[in-house]
């Protein structure tokens, strides 16, 4: 097996303006760290209905930092991620939202984790430092930890969208479309549930971390405020169907 494993870093961008630069710099740093240790990384930024400032900043970054820039007209983070996946060429995909930050070691640590455990796994960093309008630490839970409860995924999402997953999986199970008119949102939560239903494990990379920016009215908050739910899943129904009948 080659010691160089390819990763495509896919950045979702919309209208972050100057906020996108720290994110892109964190990507550059993480990429550099990984490449110095033998991991090839390509970068793709998916610009979804950007404003002029964001477009200029991202394209300038792309020109200087060897990043491919794709401009799309989706108005949908999940669909934009799917398009980034289609354009990717590496075996593994790492997602970043253009107002969040990667820890320097994230890409490399995720690659190492995937090498040590080659099961069908989506990887998440152990630690998320929330900054901006609110500060706290969000700890990702490993599905194989005793504290994980499958039913909790009905009401809450265990993991952020900035995961590390095989491209093949993402092509097989793409992100669902957000349909706020039908109150269907939270595309990453829906995708997490859909992948688990397909037998995928979600695990953490211990010691790796991201920083997640809390803005005044993020899409997540808008979705929650609009009483949306994630896309429907048979995950729980299927689990219920496996239960043994009670003895009379």
């Amino acid at each position: 097996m080659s010691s160089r494993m390819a990763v495509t870093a896919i950045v979702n961008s919309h209208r972050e303006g100057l906020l996108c630069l720290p994110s892109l710099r964190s990507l550059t740093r993480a990429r550099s760290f990984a490449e110095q240790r033998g991991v090839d990384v390509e970068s793709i930024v998916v610009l979804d209905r950007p404003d002029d400032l964001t477009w200029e900043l991202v394209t300038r970054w792309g020109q200087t930092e060897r990043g491919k820039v794709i401009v799309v007209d989706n108005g949908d983070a999940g669909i934009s991620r799917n398009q980034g996946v289609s354009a990717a060429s590496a075996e593994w995909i790492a997602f970043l939202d253009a107002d969040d930050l990667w820890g320097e070691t994230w890409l490399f640590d995720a690659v190492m984790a995937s090498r040590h455990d080659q099961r069908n796994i989506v990887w998440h960093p152990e630690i998320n430092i929330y900054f901006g309008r609110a500060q706290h630490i969000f700890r990702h839970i490993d599905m194989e930890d005793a504290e994980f409860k499958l039913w909790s995924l009905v009401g809450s999402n265990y993991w952020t969208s900035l995961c590390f997953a095989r491209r093949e999986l993402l092509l097989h199970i793409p992100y669902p479309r957000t349909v706020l008119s039908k109150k269907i949102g939270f595309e990453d939560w829906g995708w997490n549930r859909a992948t688990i239903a397909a037998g995928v494990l979600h695990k953490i990379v211990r010691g790796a971390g991201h920083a997640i920016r809390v803005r005044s009215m993020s899409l997540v908050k808008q979705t929650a405020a609009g009483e949306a739910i994630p896309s429907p899943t048979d995950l729980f129904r299927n689990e219920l169907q496996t239960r043994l009948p009670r003895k009379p």
Partner: protein
Amino acid sequence: MKRGKLTEYARNLARWASRASFDGKFKIDGAAKRIAQSGLFDGNWYLEKYPDVAAAGIPPLDHYLRHGAFEHRAPGPNFDPVWYVTRYPDILGMNPLLHYIDYGVTEGRTAKPPIPSFVERTKKVLDQISDLDPEIYSSAAFKHITAFQVVDGEWRGIVAATFGKIYESLTRSFEYMVFVPWLTHGGADLVAVNLVRSLTKRFGVKSTLVVVADEESTVARDWLPANTEVLVFRAFEASLNVEQRAELIEALIQAIRPRCVININSHSCWQAFVRRGAALGTFTRLYAGLFCRDYSADGRPAGYADTHFREAAPFLSGVILDNSTFAEELCARFGLPDQLSKKLRVLKQPIPNVTVPWTRPLSTRAKKLSVLWASRLCRQKNVDLLTKIVNQAPFINFDVWGRGDEIFERQIRVLQGKRSNIKFQGPYESFVALPISKYDAFLYTSLWDGIPNVLLEAAAAGIPIVASRVGGVGELVTDQTGWPITEYEEPNEYIRSLTAIHSSPTEARQRADAMSRFVTTEHSWVKYEKELFKVEGLCEG
């Protein structure tokens, strides 16, 4: 306990008792039990850590409750009270462990500081990114990252905890979920039961889950087919309010993902339909029962047709009614276009399989007419009107069966004390248990209704019926099948019709027989099930 601390404790307890988020639930009774059940108190550990307690020979939990909690002694290795009261100063003065058990867990508070190794790993991540953004490097908060709250993505709170218990208790998934507010021997309950009977007959008893969502009464569980699975929310958590129960319903529907959800009068389920019907309707078919308008004590329309139907209508696959009159009224009142009006399906409820036929021989020679009134004693059934009829018709004997609101039961008892022509018989087990052949006629005085089940039972039994022509009653009681009273608040109109029964026994018999034939055809089980399974989407995958 030192006096000062006791005073402070009592003062804080009073302060907590008044907080809106508190719900008045703080229980000092049973504290020892709650602590013991939490798994956070370790008696042996406590004695080892606090040799003074061991030397004094005091039982460790006793010491902890009386002294240790307020001295901020740790109850065990997994709860750090000093850290907890420092981290959460809003609980000062409270037993920190009890606060954590009763509230902190569901609020996502942590019982002890993060593990030092986790803190170290977090600091390393912070070091990697802190120079990248001013919202980090300019923020004073990030100098004290060890004080940050550590949360995770687990679904918490009382709804989550209740859902978890319910989910773990489920034995399988279901194709149909029927929501009811309670399960008593009432008319709407029977509508739900008829539905469940038909669904389980066709698809098997394992296909359907009955959810008692609002209250805890399930006295009519025996009406359901044997082995029907019934889920009672209050058996898992009695303190949920209607919004929380709605959230619980939404979660259950998402998890079970049934083919159809049918709501027969559950307030919580109507709330769920309004809140998330758009989303739920993308993967399951939502149905609701509506039968008539309902009114508040001060006379305002307050039923679900007025409070919830309009908002939920676009997301419903169907509305099940028991009479055409109300269907027409809904269309007219809300100006329903075709795409919505076609969702309204009238399902005539079936008469019971078992009836006791009315066999009293009518005769003009009988001195006094004997009349049966059997219903719930409440404002809807117009006990006030019944009182007036009794007062104005001393030449008619009335037997009143039923139970209900205390004020109306008392009213009838008082009337019995004053009048010799009324007897209050009290509650009855079922219509077939009533001695209907003792009576010449059945009197119904309701102010508003669909097609009440008791009228269907009286109709099936073949007893002559005098009834207020309200709601859907006129579809059952016509001039050919009984005596409908159009001026339904006029006592004399009822008395006139009862007198007509007395003076024309042949006519009375003919109308009663016509009624019996009518309900045997139009309200048969065969017809009901045929119409039920024509409801769009009910049988489809």
